[in-house]
């Protein structure tokens, strides 16, 4: 039986109609399903988020947990079912369209005559003339449109004022730190009162001075505001530059007030025992772990601690060990949601804090830099960009005049910043071209011809003018992963690193005076004083050299290696090894051991001294040792 062509055409037409109808229905369903699919995204579910929020308030509500799990499962099922439906729907749509196309094609092939386009009247000359006219119109239209767009377009970049954004990044009014204030014990009031007036008077003086200056220059400021770009409000007030004498009275930086390992405190204890509590005045366990060393101003002692959950600054009463306040370094713009990977021996809180008695500054392995006043109120904070550092950022902070110095050498390049201590504004910034990652801390020295900021990294030891960031000299002598900061005494800087060299550099000329490579430190920084140079290695050898010519006077092998740096206090060198034993010896041309007291736990910190007491941070606890 043969089907007449007309019937075949009709059948093909019917199939085409059915296929087109089917395709349209599927298409509508797909669109509806797509919209529904969007609304059931498990990550965007309002109901689920509400329940999770509620769980934060009642974390032990097991019934609520079950509800969340059930709802989560339901939403996920709905989500994946919708996804499946969309995929199947897409296949059905393609199937319907293919059938439709085949039916139409078949129908066309049954027609004897070839399809012709609906003819339009053509005249080659007139068509070309019209085409020319339209091309000219459209071309001219495009030109006009482009010119208009160009004239009307607004280039915001032309209005950019350098660092306009950074200044306004954090305002204390909008960003409240997560602060816990611990009320002082009554017994501590007298101790507080002894030192507090000094700081308070200074602050008051400074505030009064600022007020006077402000009133005098009020008219001028108003006039300037009319002509100059509006500056963002700056947090805090201008800080007073603290004298070196005042710094020396305290312990404001890693390795002391001079950042070179020399402390000016006297009457330091020589014996203690962490295990039986001998001479241990107090011992506390900080809430979070950190390898940073204690910093002291007045009666306040500062350390930091950090983990994946939080980065915290702690302020303790140095006399009692009471926690005065702790502040979370959070809500900092640019701070990473997930902390960078660090090794256990570095962590996120390796850098020590710095203080000038008006504010305390802390930096963490996340790149978060925070400034707090002495009562724990946040002044400013910023993220310097997550440091690409395979161990973890460890360079400590120091302060020069009104500038906070940050050494920021990472795998992606090195920088050194100077931030205004009051406002956090960048005073200067230098890209450290030619250096690789480093874990050393910056050191400030007075060469006699001016201050120098000396930074050590592979392969260069570089000196900068701390006022401007201008490079003064550089010496190519380092290699490997540089951990030790430079030592300094009497116009000579001592840079050293394991597998590299120990180089004595004349800070006035930048020339290497002598080099030695028998004993090299891995982490511990050199200590130079009284014509002698002390080196402590990570494999447990302490060596003493002549600081002028590098002659070795003695070497002493110890049971454990050293990560902490040696400190000179009261004519004796204090250095703690990794087992927690402090080696106390006289700074002399012969090794003269004074004592080897044990802390009772592992340690890698550098000691801090204040008012006849020594402060040591073990892996777990913070100790105050006194007579």
């Amino acid at each position: 039986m043969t089907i007449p062509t007309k019937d075949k055409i009709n059948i093909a037409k019917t199939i085409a109609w059915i296929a087109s109808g089917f395709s349209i229905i599927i298409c509508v369903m797909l669109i509806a399903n797509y919209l529904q699919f969007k609304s059931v995204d498990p990550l965007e579910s309002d109901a689920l988020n509400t329940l999770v929020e509620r769980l934060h308030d009642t974390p032990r509500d097991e019934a609520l947990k079950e509800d969340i799990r059930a709802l989560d499962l339901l939403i996920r099922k709905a989500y994946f079912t919708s996804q499946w439906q969309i995929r199947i729907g897409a296949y059905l749509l393609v199937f319907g369209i293919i059938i439709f196309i085949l039916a139409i094609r078949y129908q066309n092939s049954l027609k004897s005559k070839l399809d012709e386009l609906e003819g339009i009247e053509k005249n080659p000359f007139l068509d070309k003339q019209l085409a020319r006219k339209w091309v000219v119109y459209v071309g001219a239209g495009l030109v006009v449109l482009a010119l208009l767009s160009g004239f009307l377009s607004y280039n915001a970049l032309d209005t950019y004022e350098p660092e306009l954004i950074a200044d306004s990044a954090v305002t204390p009014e909008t960003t409240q730190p997560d602060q816990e204030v611990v009320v002082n014990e009554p017994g501590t009031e007298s101790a507080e009162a002894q030192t507090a007036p000094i700081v308070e008077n200074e602050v008051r003086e400074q505030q009064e001075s600022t007020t006077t200056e402000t009133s005098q220059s009020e008219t001028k400021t108003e006039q300037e505001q009319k002509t100059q770009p509006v500056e963002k409000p700056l947090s805090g007030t201008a800080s007073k530059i603290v004298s070196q004498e005042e710094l020396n009275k305290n312990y404001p930086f890693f390795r002391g007030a001079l950042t070179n390992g020399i402390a000016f405190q006297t009457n330091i204890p020589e014996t203690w025992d962490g295990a039986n509590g001998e001479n241990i005045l107090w011992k506390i366990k900080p809430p979070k772990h950190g390898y940073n060393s204690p910093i002291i101003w007045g009666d306040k002692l500062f350390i930091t601690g950090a983990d994946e959950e939080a980065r915290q600054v702690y302020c303790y009463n140095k006399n009692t060990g009471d926690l005065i306040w702790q502040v979370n370094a959070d809500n900092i713009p640019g701070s990473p949601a997930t902390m960078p990977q660090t090794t256990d021996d570095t962590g996120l809180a390796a850098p020590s804090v710095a203080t000038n008695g008006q504010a305390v500054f802390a930096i963490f392995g996340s790149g978060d830099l925070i400034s707090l006043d002495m009562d724990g109120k946040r002044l400013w904070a910023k993220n310097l960009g997550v440091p690409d550092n395979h161990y973890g950022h460890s360079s400590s902070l120091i302060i020069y005049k009104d500038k906070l110095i940050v050494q920021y050498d990472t795998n992606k390049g090195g920088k050194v910043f100077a931030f205004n201590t009051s406002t956090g504004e960048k005073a200067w910034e230098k890209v450290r071209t030619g250096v690789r990652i480093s874990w050393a801390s910056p050191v400030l020295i007075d060469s006699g011809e001016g201050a120098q900021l000396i930074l050590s990294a592979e392969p260069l030891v570089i000196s900068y003018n701390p006022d401007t960031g201008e490079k003064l000299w550089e010496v190519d002598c380092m290699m490997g992963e540089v951990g030790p900061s430079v030592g300094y005494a009497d116009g000579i800087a001592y840079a050293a690193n394991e597998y590299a060299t120990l180089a004595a550099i004349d800070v006035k000329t930048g020339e290497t005076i002598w080099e030695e490579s028998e004993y090299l430190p891995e982490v511990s920084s050199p200590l130079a004083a009284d014509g002698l140079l002390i080196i402590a290695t990570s494999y447990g050898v302490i060596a003493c050299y002549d600081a002028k010519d590098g002659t070795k006077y003695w070497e002493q092998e110890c049971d454990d290696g050293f990560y902490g740096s040696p400190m000179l206090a009261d004519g004796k060198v204090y250095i703690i090894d990794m087992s927690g034993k402090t080696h106390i010896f006289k700074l002399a041309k012969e090794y003269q051991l004074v004592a080897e007291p044990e802390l009772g736990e592992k340690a890698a910190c550098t000691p801090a001294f204040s008012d006849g007491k020594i402060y040591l941070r073990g892996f777990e606890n913070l100790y105050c040792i006194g007579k």
Partner: protein
Amino acid sequence: MTKLKHFLITLSLFLINLPLWAQAQQRFPKPEFETGYVQPPTTTPDPRALFLEYLDVFVLIAALAIVSWLALKKRSRSGIFWMSVFSLLYFGFYREGCICSIGAIQNVALAIADPTYVLPLSALLFFIIPLAVALFFGRTFCAGVCPLGAIQDLVAFRPIELPKWLQKVLGLIPYLYLALAILYVVTKSDFIICRYDPFVGIFRFDAEFQMLLLGGLFLLVGVFVARPYCRFFCPYGVLLGWMSTFSKKHLTITPSACIQCKLCANSCPFGAIEEPTPAGSNRKQDVKRFMVYLLFIPLWIGLGGLSGSMLHVPLSKMNKTVYLANELVENPELINDQEHIDVVTFMQSGKSMDELVIEAKQIQSQFYWGGWIMGAFMGLVIGLTLVKLSSHRSRQDYETDKTNCLSCGRCMDYCPVKVNDKMLIMSKK
């Protein structure tokens, strides 16, 4: 040796990407379950095997050879049609629209602009081979190898002929698209041809709704206006058209002498058949007009260049660095927005705002000079289009417009003169 080189390149890319994967894992940490559920290990798809890339090139060459043979020797429209169906299935649905000669423009442009970019050999071959074939045999790639053309050809049920002026005006768009695509590539801003490919979502059964809608609209329009993307958008079509213009053995409507039957006059849905020119034109006037438009070309180039350069600010906003810099300068409070992934990434990069703005301004400068070149090119295109529309070429027969003819072979079916007739005529001679 080449295999070894490719293996090493593939391995290098794999290793280079490892940290990115690690970072991706770090950015979206897996949840931890108290129930003891153990997360399955993350799996990553294997890179496409090298021999499969060569297979793609082989299929391209084979398909081009077959389609060229079908168009020029066999003169089979149905053969070309079924080859296009095959290409749609292979390059479209199986290869999911990638690799593709149209997108390869960007790879080649980037390789020229950035010497550090490693141009995949397959991308280079996909760019060059169809152009080389077009230089000899016309746009047979469009006829039966390009999956984008094939999918549009399938739905061209009721094509209508567009007036010449409209075709000419819309025909300017591919030049603009090509210029923009190259501008965005050399400024390392974007691969806009791939980003706005209207059919790739259909090939992959997965795309943003807007992209699927765009693809659907192109197909819907394609029912009445045959191959709208090929004719009025495809940037590769511009290059193929240039090559095809000089092709020696282009498809012809008739295999022998035209008998002026006019049956093919309304057969081409692409408006690519040129009719015989009637006598009676005023030669003196034609020459004068031609000369005027010729002299105007520098003006068009200058105006175009100026216009293009004026557009550098809005055009550069598609660059993510410029966009972010603009966002942060205009809305400084965004720096505190922890939900703004671009801002957070920027803050984590360690760059200062100054550095960001300087970088953005450098990119804007590239757009400024690129805008001059792009605009001058468009001015040249408009000028030459007008010159071509002013020229008069005497034509006795119906002929294909080599530049715009897609070699689909529709017109061949309409021609009553067949190959056998040609053989007969030749034997009689």
